[in-house]
């Protein structure tokens, strides 16, 4: 709030004022910049945050870590005004936040830098930085002044971008810097960096770390959300660990180490589906029938990945977002052609030309985002199940709706899909049931190899348990199930084997019984990569 008036444009050269005057007095002040007290937030069916407190000091780099679903993004959304907390209080710069909206947060001086910043590619860097507050002279835009001011701002934070370049011509990391500059121009005192290195290569990441150091020097606080602990240990002053929507601990980085943080993140979560028995070994003749192999496969994302999955096996592939799990699914489903390496399905070389070809050869993808990639929401349950193999329901050139519904009803019963009827539109179903409709479609496709992306994401615990059971049953029937998930705990509970990826490489390939949550977490997010057995 204190610096808000700086932005009216009446002050000549905002950057020339004594630095720091616009910001909170000093780093040593014990008064926290942001003070979150006992915040709870629930969504239908999920308690996302329970009684979480944490504080961020002025000029501090504060890391927020936790497993998927630990509540990191919900906490960020509470702080940045996207979700008002159900209970609890948030103070910023000594003022109570009582109106929650992204605009209020931005006006107060809290800015988020997402991976996908809403920048306007056709406009210049300076125009993007000044957007909505472009300086004018006699009623006309004063581009010269905008460029000059932007150059000063960029210089102050050692951001290396040309103010006059169109944003569309910049690299991902340069765009990120423009987004940071825009936030700083709006006098942000707290920058939230949400997985800032996910889309960056090593050199770009280094550049970002330098920017973060400069922010610290300029007394701007940073809330740094990342999966990568090595980054966090290199940058952060303090670390807050969340688990299952609760605060585990906030600690000074100098007082802890990676092993301890991994242990805190892992905790001891109650088992979801202890009743899922890993099937007895499938009949020997089934084994190998649908085995899938990748040999030295590389793509934009993957680096020399070799792995094999047998019929009757449930294999979990995990890793942080961008580590390559989904890329493996894309390769197997014919959506990405490997640059090098080869695929084998059964005994024959496998080169899928696209989804249709992959399906014909018995490989079916159950995509991660049912709403975007899976469902046709305006069609019925039956039509969504049958669409993968419509010719099967044709009689003399016409669709037999009766056959279609009968088949759909079988699957609805078999998988326990909760729906009023098979004619119900899929958009009226809950998330877990939509997932099951997709599973039913995979069954209808009669696939031998199932690629399941995040099959239990966003579903409640009962649906989760049932989906585990269904996948295990499919494996027992001789199918190969490949489950790509960021939920490690989940995979450990029902997969036979877990393959952990890190930055496109297989970091570990181990039977689920012989590993632990902490170990997998360590190889996917920890620093010691080379030690994988």
């Amino acid at each position, binding site marked *: 709030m204190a610096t808000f008036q700086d932005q009216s444009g009446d002050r000549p050269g905002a950057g020339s004022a004594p630095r720091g005057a616009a910001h909170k007095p000093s780093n040593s002040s014990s008064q926290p910049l942001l003070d979150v007290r006992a915040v709870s937030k629930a969504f239908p069916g999920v308690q996302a945050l329970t009684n979480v407190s944490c504080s961020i000091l002025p000029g501090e780099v504060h890391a927020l870590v936790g497993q998927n679903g630990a509540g990191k993004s919900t906490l960020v959304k509470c702080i940045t005004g996207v979700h008002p907390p159900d209970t609890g209080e948030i103070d910023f710069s000594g003022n109570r936040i009582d109106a929650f909206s992204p605009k209020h947060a931005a006006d107060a001086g809290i800015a988020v830098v997402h991976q996908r910043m809403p920048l306007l590619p056709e406009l210049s860097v300076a125009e993007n930085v000044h957007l909505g507050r472009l300086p004018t002279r006699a009623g006309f835009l004063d581009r010269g002044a905008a460029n000059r001011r932007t150059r000063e701002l960029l210089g102050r934070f050692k951001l290396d971008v040309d103010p006059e370049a169109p944003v569309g011509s910049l690299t991902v990391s340069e765009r990120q810097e423009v987004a940071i500059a825009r936030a700083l121009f709006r006098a942000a005192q707290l920058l939230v960096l949400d997985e800032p290195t996910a889309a960056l290569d090593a050199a770009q990441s280094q550049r970002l770390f330098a920017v973060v150091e400069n922010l610290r020097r300029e007394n701007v606080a940073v809330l740094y959300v990342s999966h990568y602990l090595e980054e966090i240990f290199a940058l952060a002053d303090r670390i807050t660990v969340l688990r299952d929507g609760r605060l585990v601990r906030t600690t000074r980085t100098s007082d802890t180490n990676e092993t301890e943080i991994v242990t805190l993140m892992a905790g001891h979560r109650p088992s979801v589906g202890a009743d899922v028995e890993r099937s007895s070994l499938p009949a020997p003749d089934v084994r190998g029938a649908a085995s899938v192999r990748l040999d030295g496969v590389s793509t934009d994302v993957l680096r020399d990945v070799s792995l094999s999955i047998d019929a009757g096996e449930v294999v979990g592939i995990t890793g942080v977002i961008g580590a390559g799990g989904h890329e493996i699914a894309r390769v197997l*489903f014919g959506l990405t052609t490997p640059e090098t390496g080869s695929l084998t399905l059964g005994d024959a070389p496998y080169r899928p030309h696209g*989804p*249709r070809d*992959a*399906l*014909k050869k018995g490989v079916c*993808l159950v*995509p991660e985002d049912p709403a*975007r*990639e*899976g*469902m*046709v*929401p*305006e*069609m*019925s349950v*039956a*039509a969504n199940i*049958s*669409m*993968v193999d*419509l*010719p099967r329901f*044709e009689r003399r*050139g*016409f*669709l037999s*709706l009766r056959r*279609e*519904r009968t088949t*759909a009803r079988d699957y609805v019963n078999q998988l326990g899909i*909760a*729906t*009023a*009827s*098979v*004619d*119900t*539109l899929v958009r*009226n*179903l809950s998330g877990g049931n939509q997932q099951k409709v997709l599973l039913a*479609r995979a069954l209808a*496709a009669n696939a031998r190899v199932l690629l399941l992306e995040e099959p239990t994401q966003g579903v409640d615990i009962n649906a989760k348990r049932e989906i585990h059971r269904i996948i295990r049953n499919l494996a027992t029937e001789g199918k190969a199930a490949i489950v790509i998930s960021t939920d490690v705990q989940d995979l450990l509970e029902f997969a036979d084997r877990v393959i952990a990826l890190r930055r496109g490489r297989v970091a570990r390939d181990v039977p689920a019984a012989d590993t632990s949550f902490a170990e997998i977490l360590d190889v996917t997010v920890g620093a010691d990569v080379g030690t994988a057995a």
Partner: protein
Amino acid sequence: MSVDPETQVSATSGALGSPAAAESEVGPRRRRTWTSITIGGLDLYSLWPIVVMILIIIITSLRASNYLSVSNLENVISQIAPLGIVTMGQAILLISGGIDLSVGYNASFASIVTGLLLEHHHPLGLDILAGVAAATLVGFVNGVLAAQNRAHPFIITLGMSIFLFGLDTQMTGGAPVNDMGGLYTTFGGTFWGGIPTVAIPLVVVVIITYVFLRWSRLGRQAYAIGGNEEATYLAGIRVKRTKIYLYTLMGLIVGVAGMVLAGQINEASFNLGQNYELESIATAVIGGTALFGGRGGALRSLQGVALYGVVQNAISFAGLSSNYQQMALGVIIVIAVMVARASR
């Protein structure tokens, strides 16, 4: 019954509605609002064009004694027949997330091809075949271009429309071909057992469209593509090929409409199908077909055509100029889209 949007239509149509249709609107999370009130399984909101139509008929009949007559009904049917045919094709494309703005000049194109061949005394059957084939070819080209996903079909078919306007004018030299021979004797105000003959191709096209959307693989794929193209592709459906088929089918339907139009007024000219592009989109949307794909049906869209015809007819009965028809149509389109939005 599996594709729900069509189910609502079968309920509204009375004659074609089956008892089973009623149950299909059951949705666990459907909120009770005025738009979801059903009476005896009939969904009130999707019936609104018919309700409005009946109101207009009642009001007009009170003011004009000769309004409710067989000859006036025949009048209305003759007026809407060619548009109704085009609307069926447009509905299929809209459901698939596509659109065709070239239908007007494509219908003209078909009539001109047939008309010019007739002038040279070729046999009628062959001429009709050539005209329809020409329009089908245009549809095929539209489909091939639209399937590339390089440009929105709106632009592609707009370009095609402008191209065809030039071609039509060039072929006729701007002057209409004035003798459609056998086509005129078939469709030019002719009746079979009291029914205007133009109603026959309309009914046939409506039935084919209804069956196509409900019981054919391609029709189902049209709903799927319009509802979620990405998901449809990932489900192994050949999206490009399906689009080409659908646009080609549209061309075929437009060719038929061109024949009916030319026969009705006994001429082939570049402006024969003028405005059909926008009118067919408007009537399909008024009837309840979604402008951006995924929902709609043959009988629903026919509802829109019927309302459009009745409004036109009532306004001319009231002695008002055709300018008022345009104004009324504009109002109805906006209401239709808002009602559709409210029901979501």
